[in-house]
């Protein structure tokens, strides 16, 4: 018997049986230990709205950790679109499967955020650089005397 968790949603009109479930996009079917564990548990009971929202929140937190501009934007956007796309799911086993997939995808995102940060290049994308100097000076090939230039003159 599963213990019922008491939170602000129980016993109110936001009962788990009345709300349309937010769920996750259908990601890879690659078996990971975590998804395997969850499958047996999740098949029995569908996730609650709070669990699903917390999964989305974790996705957005993991997306923020990516050092690469494009991947970061994609991860956040795809998570939101995926959850929104699965909002209409009503079959509890489908919801549970999607939730399990979402958990495994979250693990992938966390691992990859660490890998990308370990190998992040020193310069960021131009999209992240505010008021880039070439635009200020009106040319992308202009000479710019930063502090590095002066140091180079005096080294023999």
């Amino acid at each position: 018997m599963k213990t019922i968790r008491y939170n602000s949603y129980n016993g109110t009109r936001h009962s788990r049986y009345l709300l349309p479930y937010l769920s996750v996009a259908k990601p890879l079917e690659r078996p990971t230990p975590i998804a395997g564990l969850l499958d047996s548990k999740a098949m029995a009971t569908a996730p609650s709205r709070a669990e699903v929202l917390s999964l989305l929140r974790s996705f957005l937190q993991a997306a923020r950790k990516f050092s690469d501009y494009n991947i970061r934007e994609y991860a956040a956007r795809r998570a939101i679109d995926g959850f929104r796309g699965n909002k209409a799911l009503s079959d509890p086993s489908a919801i549970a499967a999607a939730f399990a997939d979402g958990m495994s995808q979250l693990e992938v995102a966390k691992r990859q955020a660490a890998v990308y940060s370990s190998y992040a290049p020193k310069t960021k994308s131009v999209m992240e650089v505010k008021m880039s100097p070439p635009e200020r000076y009106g040319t992308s090939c202009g000479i710019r005397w930063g502090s590095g230039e002066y140091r180079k003159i005096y080294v023999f």
Partner: protein
Amino acid sequence: MAAAAASRLLRRALTPAVARRRFSTAAVAAETPPSPLPSATGEEDAGMVSMKGVRISGRPLYLDMQATTPVDPRVLDAMLPFYLSRFGNPHSRTHLYGWESESAVEAARASVAALVAADPKEIFFTSGATESNNISVKGLMRFHRARKRHVVTTQTEHKCVLDSCRHLQQEGFEVTYLPVRPDGLVDLDHLADAIRPDTGLVSVMAVNNEIGVVQPLEEIGRLCREKGAVFHTDAAQALGKIPIDVEKMGIGLMSLSGHKIYGPKGVGALYVRRRPRVRIEPQMNGGGQERGIRSGTVPTPLVVGMGAACEIAMKEMDYDSRRISALQERLLNGIRAKLDGVVVNGSLEHRYPGNLNLSFAFVEGESLLMGLKEVAVSSGSACTSASLEPSYVLRALGVDEDMAHTSIRFGIGRFTTEAEIDKAIELTVRQVEKLREMSPLYEMVKEGIDIKSIQWAQH
């Protein structure tokens, strides 16, 4: 004890720092600050990148998806275990390392086959679409050298197909290079006329890498089946982007590439039909791997990456194509709203939306590219951009020399954002306006003079 420590301290304080450091390898290593990446990109100080005489404030925004695509993090996640602990050779039959590698390769093969509605036994892994094209063209014709002496292809094919055909011509085969219509599509009546009884192969690429035009594969497949020729298509740019079904399209041979679908570079696949059986002569001889079609150890991590990329592509095809179409419209409308004299090369209707090839009138191409250093775009294809000749694909479309020189190819992909498109529009428009301001030809056109009617004086 204390005296020894004190004398040590005194000695350290008195010895000049340079002399002390010179005799310690650790100190030498400590002098150069450890950088996370080998500094291949010139100097990177204060956030500026300086390379080949160009300074930009950050890494350019990437709009060159037809040249290559970034590896999807989910693909990298699938590949890494096979570089770390599961490093076995898939052809080792005697131990766990080999068994797990082999099962990973077979799973990847099934993923690739599922994306094109084929049987896994029909997929062979190669080093890329170029190798697959070579095997298809040369392998098929050499197998049937007794009875089939003719090959039909188009003038807009990829260089590897054209070069393989030229090689076959030197061996004594005949090749017909079909011209294309000005919108880039091949004329089906010309194709039907060109196929002879002794035609062994018809090779037409699915999506062109330079202009993005999608050929009518179903009609061409039907034509080839009626006439008894094998239909080969280079689907490197098409895989995972437009739906491909080898049964519906009557494809006999197909070349696939890993690094165009957010997978790793250095891997590709070849589809060879089994019913009716297409026979080819292997071009890489050796230990008989891949059923003798392509010998050599199958690179497990790369193949697993390609399989993962195909799985992802199958799930994301709808989402990506909707998003990329919207981005392409945004780009085209944004540029057209601010500039005139913008020509799209290739048909707009029969086009893969992620490829937009534009020509800007009265602007010189090299200077346009030099000014667009904060956007990574390409002019012509990556394989031909080393030479100064305008691209042969644009020449085959009938585009004028001056317009062919000013063509820019924008490649939009899964990871492109709206902000990047807006910035690309802004930078392109600014550069084109700047160049047109300096252009005397543009002034003349604005005054109403017809450029073509000018008699240029000889000096």
